[in-house]
């Protein structure tokens, strides 16, 4: 059964969209990631224009992140003050990102920029995740879990405008979360992702937040960033397809719950390796698209504006 997407202006099988949403939902339930990094390329692959894939993806992420934020809120694992600073950065970054996206689209370079961003970030994160989890499996086998240093002093701790974050038990420069938030916001607008896969490591290793509040706080920031992207993309570029987002949402709401239940039954470390492999495979697929000689190097863009 086909459905006509009024903004994407294509006709797509309804069950394909729901299935896609469910797959992304299961993934995010199992691994606790947003899944945007898989969703956006998949949408483009089925023929949704890149701009609409990014805009509607952000809209879908609003739904998945509110569910997560509420769950973490109940468990009191959100550092609202840290989240607030992060989201100020995020709103600035994502607003710049939406304008940059518009500019790149008008000169016809948006696809290649999206592609390259994916290759770089998925490649780096995937490899780090892979080695990290392989090492921790090996460590567990040997049974010699060693504790790292509690606080390592690096250059970022010398920055001015220090702020106290009680929940995270930190006293760090506000510039740090502001910059992290802005960078992730920029990526969110251009790549159509929440950016959790960048933010979580940045929060742990760069800002030094305790892992207990990382997931909730990053989701809190992501929620506002994707809301901002949805609003800006709708307002400036008209690239948010509500029908597309709602259909995928139906799948993802169910998928997340299934995934969460599935995730509790599965061995965590082994599954981290699997996620890393999945991330690296996506990266390789996109890289191949960029490097392989296209069978037809031409493409057309229609200016749909008033004539």
């Amino acid at each position, binding site marked *: 059964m086909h459905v*006509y997407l009024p903004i994407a202006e294509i006709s797509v099988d309804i069950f394909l969209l729901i299935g896609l949403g469910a797959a992304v939902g299961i993934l995010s339930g199992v691994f606790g990631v947003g899944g945007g990094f898989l969703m956006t390329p998949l949408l483009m692959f089925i023929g949704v224009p890149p701009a609409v894939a990014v805009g509607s993806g952000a809209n879908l992420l609003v*739904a998945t992140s509110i*569910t997560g934020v509420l769950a973490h809120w109940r468990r009191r694992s959100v550092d609202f003050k840290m989240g607030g600073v992060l989201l100020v950065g995020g709103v600035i970054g994502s607003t710049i990102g939406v304008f940059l996206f518009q500019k790149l689209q008008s000169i016809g370079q948006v696809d290649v920029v999206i592609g390259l961003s994916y290759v770089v970030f998925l490649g780096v994160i995937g490899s780090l995740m892979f080695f990290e989890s392989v090492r921790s499996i090996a460590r567990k086998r040997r049974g010699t879990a060693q504790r790292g240093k509690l606080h390592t002093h690096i250059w970022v701790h010398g920055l001015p405008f220090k702020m106290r974050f009680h929940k995270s038990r930190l006293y760090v420069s506000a510039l740090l979360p502001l910059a992290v938030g802005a960078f992730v916001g920029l990526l969110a607008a251009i790549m159509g992702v929440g950016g959790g896969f960048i933010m979580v490591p940045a929060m742990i290793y760069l800002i030094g937040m305790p892992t207990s509040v990382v997931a909730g706080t990053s989701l809190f920031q992501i929620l506002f960033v994707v809301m901002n992207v949805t609003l800006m993309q709708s307002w400036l570029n008209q690239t948010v397809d509500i029908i597309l987002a*709602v259909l995928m949402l139906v799948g993802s709401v*169910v998928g997340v719950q299934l995934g969460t239940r599935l995730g509790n039954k599965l061995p965590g470390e082994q599954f981290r390796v699997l996620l890393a492999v999945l991330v690296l495979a996506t990266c390789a697929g996109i890289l191949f698209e*960029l490097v392989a000689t*296209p069978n037809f190097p*031409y493409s*057309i863009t229609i200016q749909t504006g008033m004539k």
Partner: protein
Amino acid sequence: MQMLALILSALIPLTFAKAQQIATDLSSHEIEINAGFDGAELLLFGHEGNTEDILVIVKGPEFSTTVRRKERVGGIWVNKTEVLFESAPGFYFVAATPNLNADGRIETIFAETGLGARYLGLNAKTETNLSETFRGALIELKTRAKLYSDSPGTVQIRPDGLFRVKIPFPASTPVGTYSVTVYQVVDGWPVAGASTPLAVRKVGFSAYVFDLAHNQPLIYGIIAIAIALSAGWLGGLAFRRS
């Protein structure tokens, strides 16, 4: 009296056909793109007196269209060269009677008049030596998307002058005003006969969504966020209880 009316009603279309040489109509003058739209097919039918060969052209609204070519830069393929065509039809369909096709006359007509999809006179904003290649690429891409098609030989014509042809529209058919023109081929040259308008428009819920997105983008954005927030909240709630 009744007899006279009958004769008259039979005569009117005949005289009409004779005066105009040709009379045509479409099975519908409107294609409505609704939520379930997955392409459409219209039937153009008519009658022409001289049983000449017939050419049918359906032309969609024109858009300014940019053609870009990917070139290898530092190992990756990047859009590098571009040519702007200020008005390229979003849809173009040509059909002709089998006669024209059989003896190859159609190719001559296409080439000489520029009526065939492959010969469309698209003008680049600034003509360079690249224009020709890029024009070809535009036509090729539109043909692959089934938006441009040369379908010679698909107009069925009966000895008494009744003709019909099916016009296929893909799911990506652009919205706008179309013109459907029937040409009679006289001495190897097409002469424009009857022309019929056709409108492709979005209707129902998908039209509403599209209009809202373009006319009230800020409100649209807020609605999009509100839907997602409530769906996410309800979803979480429903599964927490169970």
